């Protein structure tokens, strides 16, 4: 569907398109009231929507451990983190709404399986160390992806990312600190940390998306200033940043092909299992059904609440205040 949009966009390059592209090339932000090509709008809605859904669905694997966090401090930090993620979802839905789609529509797309969210959240959190690994690796990868988006050509998205990135770096440090405490702990705790790294490493690398040569969305998004770096560039950066951290922790990255390449000044590393990635994207990951079911249940069970607030607002004949 997207590929078609790109093609039709190319076919009818109008004066408006040229002027639009010039604006982007000149580094001038696009704001909601500005003219924009339909493909640009749709790409952004898709991307911001996916990002928002990822924040929302991302509450679930981590929320799974709030009631079991091992200390009061860790519990508070995790709660604050999950609250941040919900807040990120909110900013992002608001940013997407400036493009002419409502939050309810986006939610319906998510629940109908039409809109995607980051495939990483389809993996289960099985031990407390998974909460550390998520903060360290998943928030770490998210930051890699998101820092360049602070310069995204679309103003509201770029501004949302600036707020979000600040909080994400807290999350990453907190996750790393959970891992640190574990590796400084008992043998059981160290094993728990290593096991979490083993399970989260490859899915984290997949968060950057398929290799550049296989990525459909990259090229046009780069021209439009929606994307600044390629998937492979970001993945390389992530590996280069994270491997020394794993070494510092005394943990082993589960990649037999990992080695320092002096010439390129970065690590060589193995290929993630892209078949697994595609399967998870298609809905066949370990927790896809649980995640969507949980969101569907929250939505359905909450219908009376939302309707009740609407009914009250109508009685007051005040402006609708349900959301």
């Amino acid at each position, binding site marked *: 569907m997207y590929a078609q949009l790109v093609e039709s966009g190319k076919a009818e390059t109008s004066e408006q398109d040229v002027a639009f592209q010039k604006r982007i090339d000149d580094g001038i932000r696009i704001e909601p009231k500005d003219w924009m090509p339909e493909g640009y709008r749709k790409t952004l809605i898709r991307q911001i929507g996916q990002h928002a859904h990822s924040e*929302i669905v991302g*509450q*679930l694997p981590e*929320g799974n451990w*709030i*009631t*079991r*966090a*091992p*200390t*009061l*401090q*860790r*519990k*508070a930090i995790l*709660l*604050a983190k*999950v*609250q941040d993620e*919900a*807040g990120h*979802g*909110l900013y992002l*839905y608001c940013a997407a709404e400036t493009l002419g789609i409502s*939050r309810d529509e986006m939610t319906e797309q998510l629940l109908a399986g039409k809109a995607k969210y980051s495939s990483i959240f389809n993996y289960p959190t099985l031990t*407390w160390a998974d909460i550390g690994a998520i903060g360290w690796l998943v928030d770490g990868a998210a930051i890699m992806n998101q820092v360049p988006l602070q310069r995204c050509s679309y103003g509201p998205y770029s501004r949302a990312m600036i707020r979000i990135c600040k909080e994400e770096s807290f999350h990453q440090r907190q996750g790393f600190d*959970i891992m640190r*405490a*574990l590796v*400084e*702990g*008992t043998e*059981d*705790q160290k094993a728990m940390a290593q096991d979490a790294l083993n399970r989260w490493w490859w899915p984290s690398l997949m968060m950057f998306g398929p290799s550049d040569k296989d990525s459909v969305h990259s090229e046009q998004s780069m021209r439009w200033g929606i994307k600044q770096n390629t998937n492979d560039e970001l993945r390389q950066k992530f590996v280069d940043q994270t491997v020394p951290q794993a070494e510092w922790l005394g943990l082993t990255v589960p990649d037999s092909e990992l080695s320092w390449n002096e010439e390129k000044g970065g690590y060589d590393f193995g290929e993630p299992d892209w078949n697994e990635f595609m399967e998870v994207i298609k809905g066949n990951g370990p927790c896809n059904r649980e995640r969507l079911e*949980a969101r569907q*249940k*929250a*939505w359905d*069970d*909450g*219908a*009376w*609440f*939302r*309707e*009740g*607030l*609407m*009914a*009250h*607002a109508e*009685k007051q004949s005040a402006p609708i205040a*349900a*959301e």
Partner: protein
Amino acid sequence: MDAFVTFCLRMGDNALILGQRTAEWCGHAPVLEEDIAFANMGLDLIGQTQLWYGLAAEAEGKGRTPDDLAFLRPERQFLNSLLVEQPNTDFGHALMRQYLFDAWHLPMQEELAKSSHEGVRGLAQKTVKEVRYHLDRSRDLIVRLGDGSEESHKRMQDALDWLWPFTADLLATDEVDAQMADEGIAPVPALIAKAFDAETQATLARATLTIPETRLRRTGGRDGIHTEHMGYILAEMQSLQRTYPGARW
């Protein structure tokens, strides 16, 4: 046990167990704003827990930490009111539980902010703003949903019918409360009961909800006699500390 320690544990246990219940909503609330609000309340409550346990642990002087109090005490030593351990049957129950707790908690914190005990006074002065915000929020939702649609009214009334008997456990008093009041550490219980009645009568009337005429009074939590829900809350909450004794996290 020392009366002051008992008092602090009752306060801290209320905050912890309600915080635990509140946190169960993360990612499951009816709208995103409520996910955020519930996480926020949970966070406030866990923060208050740490403060109360800090006071309890210090007064007790046995070298226990706030985490020891949270994760290593058995059920019979938890002294929270029965209200806060009641399950998240639906979002209406969660809101009503929160509201009834807040309606007691705010007058309590306001009085504690004048406590003769410096630690208690400081704690209450620090947290009273949070508690006021919680009550403002829960009161507002109770009124809107009670006086909302037919279904929201029914759900809020059901929640009130179920939870009301447990408010007796918030307001129950014993010699510990008498001693705390004598020493000026905590308010005279009757004062809080009066404030609670005034708040709930006014708000529930605005919400078109009816306080159930029941003689049922569910008490015992303050003495460590809980409902059957409590064991599961603790089993979940304490699982890591129990599985890996002595580990640091």
